[in-house]
């Protein structure tokens, strides 16, 4: 059985470099990469002052030692990919006009994450095989804590997702827990195809980012009013927006497709584990417009109950059982990597992305230690859109603002506009900014 094996290998300076197998969720990403797409996500923090790149580089040099599973590169074995800690921290990069530019193969092999600086903002872009959004957030917070300590001499305690940079990495942080929590009965992967947003497809290296900023208290009050979680509220808003879009596109309602939103579920809280690897699964909310007209309250009600039914430990264990089943077959493990890649890519293409309209990743309320608060103005999170879908949406709340980031590869901001119209009707007006703001 494939468990997370953390081993070490000496580098040229005699320092032991950790290497480990990819966790169960990570295995698909190297195989599913395409010419235009690699699964990368971005987390960023905007500070109150311009970032000192030299100090940040020095902070990064310290921080990478603490995160051997994130400060890593992807390597190829005969049978599997594996990740290996980087020998030294990568150079801080300058921001370009476009976030989440594809990580090409040589780059992923050299170092599968980037640290990018622009004015007051520090961003990390991480290849999804290394970790998930929550793992990345711990890395970013710890990096900023080290930066603030070096720059301003502030003492920042190791709490609220900030790790102590001086302590060695803990074994449980590098563990792949999927095999430990897999259930006995595998769940079916069968899903119907979902509505697909269409538009004028543009270059994937130049994607459009639109950030909607919303007052957190209003969002919370709205969620309370409709008796849903914040993730549920946004899922309902996006569902309503996409239903409106589809109604205009497909006049014959019997030909309309279900509106499905994929919501990643953080398993750390559910199973009480502290991994810094990928430890996330998903649930899909679904509303079928062929069944009739839905008002917003009804959508919230359905999504609330779908989430309550879907997000249970037993259900998640059952889904994990399906995912880890191939890993447990010795014969399959013996297949050479190129063959595995072919098979995994074929499966991913067949079932991977048509089953939802977009993924809605909500990292929730992000907090930092008290002594850091005065230096961090804002935080953002978003993911690259899937290979065949045009949108992805990342949400987090920091301070008194909710940041909803849409990254898309089509020209027209159709979903953002439809979402704004739904929210405007509900009485919430978003403040909007984009990565093309300064271009007419």
């Amino acid at each position: 059985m494939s468990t997370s094996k953390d081993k070490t290998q000496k580098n040229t300076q005699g320092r032991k470099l950790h290497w480990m197998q990819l966790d169960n969720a990570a295995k698909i990403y190297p195989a599913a990469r395409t010419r235009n797409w690699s699964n990368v996500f971005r987390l960023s923090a905007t500070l109150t002052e311009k970032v000192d790149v030299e100090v940040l580089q020095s902070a990064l040099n310290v921080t990478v030692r603490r995160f051997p599973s994130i400060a890593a590169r992807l390597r190829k074995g005969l049978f599997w990919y594996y990740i290996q800690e980087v020998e030294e921290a990568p150079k801080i990069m300058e921001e370009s006009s476009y976030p989440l530019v594809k990580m090409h193969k040589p780059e992923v092999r050299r170092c599968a994450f980037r640290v990018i600086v622009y004015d007051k903002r520090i961003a990390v872009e991480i290849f999804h095989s290394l970790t998930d959004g929550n793992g990345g957030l711990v890395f970013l917070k710890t990096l900023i804590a080290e930066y603030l300590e070096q720059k301003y001499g502030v003492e920042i305690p190791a709490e609220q997702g900030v790790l102590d940079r001086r302590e060695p990495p803990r074994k449980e942080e590098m563990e792949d827990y999927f095999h430990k929590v897999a259930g006995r009965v595998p769940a079916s992967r069968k899903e119907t195809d979902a509505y697909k947003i269409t538009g004028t497809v543009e270059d994937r290296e130049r994607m459009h980012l639109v950030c909607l900023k919303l007052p957190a208290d209003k969002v919370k009050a709205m969620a309370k009013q409709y008796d849903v979680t914040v993730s549920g509220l946004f899922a309902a808003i996006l569902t309503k927006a996409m239903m409106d879009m589809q109604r205009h596109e497909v006049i014959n309602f019997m030909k309309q497709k279900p509106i499905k939103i994929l919501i990643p579920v953080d398993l750390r809280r559910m199973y009480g584990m502290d991994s810094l690897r990928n430890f996330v699964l998903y649930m899909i909310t679904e509303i079928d417009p062929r069944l009739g007209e839905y008002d917003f309250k009804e959508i919230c009600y359905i999504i609330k109950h779908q989430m309550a039914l879907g997000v249970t430990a037993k259900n998640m264990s059952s889904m994990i059982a399906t995912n880890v089943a191939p890993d447990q077959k010795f014969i399959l493990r013996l297949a050479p990597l190129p063959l595995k890649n072919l098979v995994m890519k074929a499966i991913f293409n067949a079932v991977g992305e048509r089953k939802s309209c977009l993924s809605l990743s909500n990292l929730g309320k992000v907090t930092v230690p008290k002594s850091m608060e005065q230096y961090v103005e804002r935080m953002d999170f978003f993911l690259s859109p899937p290979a065949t879908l045009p949108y992805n949406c990342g949400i987090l709340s920091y301070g008194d603002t909710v940041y909803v980031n849409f990254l898309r590869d089509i020209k027209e901001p159709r979903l953002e506009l439809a979402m704004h119209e739904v929210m405007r009707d509900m009485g919430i007006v978003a403040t909007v900014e984009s990565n093309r703001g300064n271009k007419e």
Partner: protein
Amino acid sequence: MYCVKCGVKLEDTEKLCPLCGTRVYHPDVERGEASPLYPARKYPVMLHPKTVQIVVTTIFLIGCLVTLLCNLETSGTVTWSGYVIGAALMTYVMAVLPTWFRRPNPVIFVPSGGAAICLYLLYISIATEGRWFMSFAFPVVGILTLIVTTVVTLCRYLENGRLYIFGGAFMAAGLSTILVEFLLNITFNRPYAGWFIYPMVPSVLIGGMLIYLAICRPARETMERKFFV
């Protein structure tokens, strides 16, 4: 400031509304200075696909030129280099040419590939004075190109019916072996051997099985269940 068209509140950095594209302007409202979310007109450093294509094309051209010069230097005329250059051009048309287009349409490039193969074979036929091109190579390559083009076209423009398409293609390919043997025999004056049965029977059986699966839903569902990965 708010967008006059869609009503969204705009950051001071925005010159066009990011949602509806309306120009942000009000003669009486002075906008504050704000740092843009991302730097203007700064592109990521990357190897553009066009650069790769130019490099590959140059390598092809240099290869062809060197081959030609070597041949001329040693023989004084074009002999063996014609085959090498022809093969290189055929490979280029089939593998590299489609990448020059943003969304290469296989419905166009599959017949182009077939035409490239035909031209190459025609050259060999003329160069070797084989006289087998019109009676053998052209019809065989033509039929195969026709089958592949039909499959590609149907797969591209029809959403369903993959089993029918591939079933039909297998059957057509199987049946075309009769013609291949016939053309082979009349072109090269070979006696009738009947070898076409060996590729034809399995191809027609596979094709028939695929069409049966397409027609019979319970059988299809059983196969899906058994072969679900």
